[in-house]
């Protein structure tokens, strides 16, 4: 139930994000989810794509520093309190969220959230035990 995510180091320079998407488009990669965390100096672009290995290869060939990490995708009802319920569960179990962002979904009534935990397996266990819907990587890549 783990999801693979690639992350890319970007300097805060105009046009860098566009270069990443250009490289991926040329390699025929579809971006499923995207989030950019930035500071005054640099940014970290996090992506979920339909073909992680291929995307990583293409970006590395173009000189980017690329990392691969495991995240967890969770489906929540797209109505008030949905996110809060999940955060409460995690808090009670003492699980630390490193960061999170929303998944961009074309259709459906539910929202998908991407979580990065320091202990992924433990987090998945707790979520499943509490009846939270955790999405398989395979499902997500082709969503």
């Amino acid at each position, binding site marked *: 139930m783990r999801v693979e*995510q690639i*992350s890319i*180091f*970007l*300097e805060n320079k105009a046009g*860098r994000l566009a270069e990443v998407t250009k490289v991926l488009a040329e390699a025929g990669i579809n971006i499923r989810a995207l989030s950019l*965390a*930035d*500071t005054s*100096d*640099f940014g*970290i672009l*996090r992506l979920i794509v339909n073909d992680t290995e291929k995307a990583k290869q293409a970006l590395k060939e173009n*000189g*980017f*520093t*690329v*990392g691969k*990490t495991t995240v967890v995708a969770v489906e929540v009802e797209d109505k008030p309190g949905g996110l809060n319920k999940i955060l409460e569960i995690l808090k009670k179990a003492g699980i630390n969220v*490193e*960061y999170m962002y929303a998944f961009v979904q074309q259709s459906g009534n539910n929202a998908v959230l991407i979580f*990065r935990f320091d202990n992924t397996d433990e987090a998945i266990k707790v979520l499943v035990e509490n009846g939270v819907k955790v999405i398989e990587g395979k499902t997500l890549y082709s969503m």
Partner: protein
Amino acid sequence: MIYNMEFETLPREALEAIQLRRLKNTVERVYATVPFYRKKFDEAGVKPSDIKSLDDLKRLPFTTKQDLRDNYPFGLFAVPMENVVRIHASSGTTGKPTVVGYTARDIDTWSELMARALAAAGATRGDIIHNAYGYGLFTGGLGVHYGAEKLGASVIPISGGNTKRQIMIMRDFGATILTCTPSYALYLAEVAQEMGVEPKTLKLKAGLFGAEPWSEKMRDEIEEALNLVALDIYGLSEIIGPGVSVECIEAKKGLHIFEDHFIPEIIDPDTGEPLPYGETGELVITTITKEAFPVIRYRTRDITSLNPEPCVCGRTHIRMNRVTGRSDDMLIIRGVNVFPSQIESVLMEIEEVEPHYQLIVEREGTLDTLTVLVEVGEQAFSDEVKKLQNLERKIEKNIKEYLGVSAKVKLVEPKTIARSEGKAKRVIDKRKL
């Protein structure tokens, strides 16, 4: 005012006679007591008895900072440790400092030279000297301090830092002479203004500024901002510390080298050949009165020229012009010597970092800033912002610890540091002195 009227105004012939006698003594002594010099002289096929005139000096081999490093810490001392009363050190190229020692007589000599330097700036027993050079292993603080006491002036050992307090003390104590780096002098003026203390209402009349390169333009700025006469002072710990040469207030044009203690030469930094007076090259200095740490033909790496013309002040000692640059890649940042290779060794010690870096030196307002760009490879990369920021802080902390200079570390993408012919450009110095 001339502190040592007899020795600072010696006729050329008498001065050279003293120099030759002292040079012979020094050469004989280092040959007998320092294995490093004996070996170097033997290799060069020159014996102490071959030194018959000042011109023979050029037959002796050079001494470099690398030699000092190879003999770390006390290998070049020419006296037993029981005769050494003081040890100073300056930053070296690999994190290990360059170590120098002084006998009681060396401290006396140095104090006299600094007393001469202060007197050349017009200081007398009646003056209050605000000494904002750093006290410690660095020679600046204690060098000025001992000279001021020797002169009989009142010295305020304020050292560096806490600028607002410095201004309060400078004003309340009525300091008349300021000693610090030229950039700190400008910073003091700026902070005073911010505090509402009009610098011109201070009692400062002259300042001795050194330990970093500066320019005529900066002199004008400092004089204007602090309403004093700004003079250049030169020295390096390998020779003795501050007080190797100083500008006189009468001429304000070039720094008199205290030639009864040091013999200067200018050489072509590439060939090592001596250059005639007036030509620009690397300054080489031989000490001729030092006991604990004599140096023969030390390559300072400072680029300057010598001016033998008589000076209006009456001193007969030769003048060196302002140092205009370096023949190596050393940077001076806020008075601290920094070699790119030192930054490299700091980076090498951090496992996840590759030594792809670039130093950018800028002058923001009056203070120098050092930014270190470090390329982020896969090893160092993390998808968490916090971890990358911690890495930046860690490098900054290590640079501060090893080099004693504050730097801002900025992570950059791989291959963004310009490489020409495969070789990265390590330093971009944007300072306009």
